[in-house]
């Protein structure tokens, strides 16, 4: 099973270590995500979940270890940043839409300005993505005029419009009011079901169980346990995993 995944590996981290000052956030992380797989990283606050995500697209440089996304060596100092960001999309907890740009501009600007793709083509794609996110009528609105859930769905469309091979979801529902969590999780689920490789850090255990193919549990900078969702939640092996699941479920 593992070897099959290794063969189809799209994202792989080997022995990744990262310290902020004297605090070691990541203490040797190994992770492999295959193409089309949905991986959910769960774990207590401060266990390094978000840092793992941020190392994958190079937002946080690592101290040690090797990260590979397809044929791109992320940890190579001479890595082509534009190619990396083209391949790896990211959705943030705080949406981080550009407030001075319309929804359509938010979704389409990077492919036009960074990837130099033709405007007409990109805007057509952006409008389709907004339809997919059930926001077609909001194309010309500004982010400030949208609800949190709507903004986050625009952010997902923005990530998709770069046509990446993998999307990182960093606690995308954590800043939302409860009634908007469902619509955003629905959108993430749709992205996953359309075959996109997804790595998500989440506190939504039910969602992780239902949407992910594989669960990773992190604690104190290492991946303690991983497995298929059903087995993972029904029968956790490590005492730290058990303790965590007892608290959150």
């Amino acid at each position: 099973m593992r070897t099959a995944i290794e063969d189809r590996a799209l994202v792989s981290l080997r022995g990744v270590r990262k310290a902020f000052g004297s605090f070691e956030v990541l203490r040797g992380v190994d992770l492999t995500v295959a193409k089309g797989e949905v991986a959910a990283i769960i774990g207590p606050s401060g266990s390094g979940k978000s840092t793992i995500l941020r190392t994958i697209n190079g937002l946080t440089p690592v101290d040690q270890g090797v990260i590979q996304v397809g044929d791109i060596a992320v940890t190579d100092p001479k890595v082509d940043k534009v190619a990396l960001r083209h391949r790896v999309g990211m959705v943030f907890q705080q949406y981080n839409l550009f407030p001075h740009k319309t929804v359509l501009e938010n979704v389409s600007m990077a492919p036009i300005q960074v990837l130099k793709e033709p405007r007409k083509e990109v805007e057509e794609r952006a409008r389709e993505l907004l339809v997919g996110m059930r926001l077609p009528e909001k194309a010309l609105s500004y982010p400030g005029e949208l609800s949190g859930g709507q903004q986050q769905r625009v952010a997902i469309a923005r990530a998709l419009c770069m046509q990446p091979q993998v999307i990182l979801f960093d606690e995308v529902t954590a800043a939302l009011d409860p009634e908007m969590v469902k619509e955003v999780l629905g959108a993430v689920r749709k992205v996953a079901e359309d075959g996109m490789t997804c790595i998500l850090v989440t506190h939504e255990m039910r969602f992780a169980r239902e949407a992910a193919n594989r669960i990773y549990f992190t604690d104190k900078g290492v991946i303690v346990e991983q497995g298929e969702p059903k087995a993972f939640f029904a029968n956790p092996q490590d005492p730290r995993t058990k303790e965590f699941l007892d608290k959150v479920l």
Partner: protein
Amino acid sequence: MSETSIFTDVLRWLPFVLWGFGLNVLMSVLAILLGTTAGVFLGLGQVSHTRVVGGVSRLATQLFRNAPWLVLLFYCIFLMPYSITISSATYNVPSWLRATLGFSVPVAANFSEIVRGAIGSVPKGQWEAAEALGYSRSVTLLRIILPQCTTRMLPPWMNLYALLITATPLASIVGVEEALARTQAAVQSEAQASFLIPMYVTLLMMFFLYTYPISRVSNALERRFRTV
């Protein structure tokens, strides 16, 4: 001496002082333009990740921001050449122009801080989102950060201008014939004590009527942007 005659005396001198006030306005407008332009570069320099650029920009900003305006004015007045020669033609640099340059130095330093502060007030997530979309640092600054800064910079910029116009009478010390110098001249030539206070009140009103609306608009803008 009757009150009406004082009033007519003030009126008689008013055009003379107003012409001087025109020079205050001219100096302030030129200085804000020069200072703002230089301040943008200094402010961008302050957030630069190139060590030398950042260091020099921060040093210049702090040096000129924390120096008395009058001292900077003296520097520019006395250190600048009195005339410049461009292709065998010699131009005198009038003292009001040298004073203008003197005013634009602290304006640049103060605006540099306004720019730095505005850039710093944009949430870090904006930088990260841009970086994750493949934008370089300089393009992020130009296309994503700075457009969000302009509205934040407008109120403090207007306050800076109001400060600047009220500082321009300092130029009278170095011999520029602006409103204050002309008021003094008028008072001296009338040589009567009862004329002194009405004349200076008139001068005060001039500055107040010009500056107060600017402060009001600035405050109104500040309130408006805060709620957005």
